[in-house]
C-alpha cells in the first residue's frame, strides 16, 4: 500500500488532469490541484515555459514531500506529477491529487504539497515571450506560504510511511 499511496512522476509528455484523477484509489474525499501555464506573467506575455530540473534530486524531493504529507495527515493517496522541458501556454505543468476519508485533511495536504513543492523541489522556469526568454524569479509570497506549515509541523521529510 505504501508504494501506491505516494506516487510521484516527472515527465516531458503533456497530460490530462481528469485522467490522472481516475487513477486515484477509492476514497471519500478527493482534492486535486492543477497548475497551468499562464500566457501572461509579471514580465510580459508568455508563449511557453522551459522547465529545467535536477534528475534524481527532483524525484527524491517530490517523494519526500508526498511522504511528509502522509505523515502529517491521514491520507489514502498523495500523487504528484510535474512536467519538464518545453510547456506551451495553456498546458498543465503540475498536478497533485490527494485522497482521504475527510475533506479537511485532503484540502490541507494538497495545499501543503503545492507550497512545499514551490520552495523545495528543484525545478526552474524560463519564460519564452515573443522576442526573448528570461528566468523566472522565486517569489517571496511562495516562501511565506510555505513557512505557514512549519508552525504546526508534526512530521519530517524522510520519516513518513512512504519512505
Amino acid at each position, binding site marked *: 500500500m505504501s508504494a501506491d499511496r505516494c506516487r510521484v512522476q516527472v515527465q516531458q509528455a503533456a497530460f490530462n488532469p481528469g485522467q490522472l484523477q481516475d487513477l486515484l484509489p477509492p476514497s471519500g474525499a478527493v482534492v486535486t490541484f492543477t497548475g497551468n501555464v499562464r500566457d501572461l506573467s509579471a514580465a510580459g506575455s508568455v508563449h511557453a515555459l522551459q522547465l529545467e530540473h535536477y534528475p*534524481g534530486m527532483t524525484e527524491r524531493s517530490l517523494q519526500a514531500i508526498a511522504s511528509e504529507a502522509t505523515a502529517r495527515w491521514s491520507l489514502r493517496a498523495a500523487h504528484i506529477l510535474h512536467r519538464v522541458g518545453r510547456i506551451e501556454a495553456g498546458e498543465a*505543468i*503540475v498536478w497533485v491529487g490527494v485522497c482521504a476519508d475527510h475533506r479537511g485533511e485532503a484540502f490541507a495536504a494538497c495545499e501543503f504539497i503545492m507550497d512545499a513543492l*514551490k*520552495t523545495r523541489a*528543484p*525545478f*526552474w522556469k524560463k519564460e519564452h515571450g515573443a522576442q526573448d526568454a528570461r528566468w523566472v524569479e522565486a517569489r517571496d509570497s511562495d516562501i511565506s506560504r510555505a513557512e505557514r506549515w512549519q508552525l504546526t509541523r508534526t512530521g519530517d521529510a524522510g520519516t513518513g510511511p512512504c519512505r
Partner: protein
Amino acid sequence: MLTVRFFARLREQLACEVLEIPCAPGLGTVAALRSALASRGPVWQQALEDQNLLMAVNHSLAEPATPLAAGDEVAFFPPVTGG
C-alpha cells in the same frame, strides 16, 4: 573526485553544467568548495557570491558546513521556481 553541478541561470552564467574536481584537503565542506570555485575568476566569483544560491550534496539540500567526501555530488542552483 567530487562531481559539481550547476543549474538554470547559474549554469548559464558560468557556461558550465558539470565539473569533476579532485578531492583535496581544502575542500572538506560545501563552503570550502564554494570558495575554491569562486577563485576561478571574476565570473565565478560574482555568480557564487549570490546569497540566495541553494546547495545540495548527494541530492539533499545542504548547509555551508555540510562535509564532503570522495564521490560526493555537489550542486549549486538558484531558488527553485517549479509548480
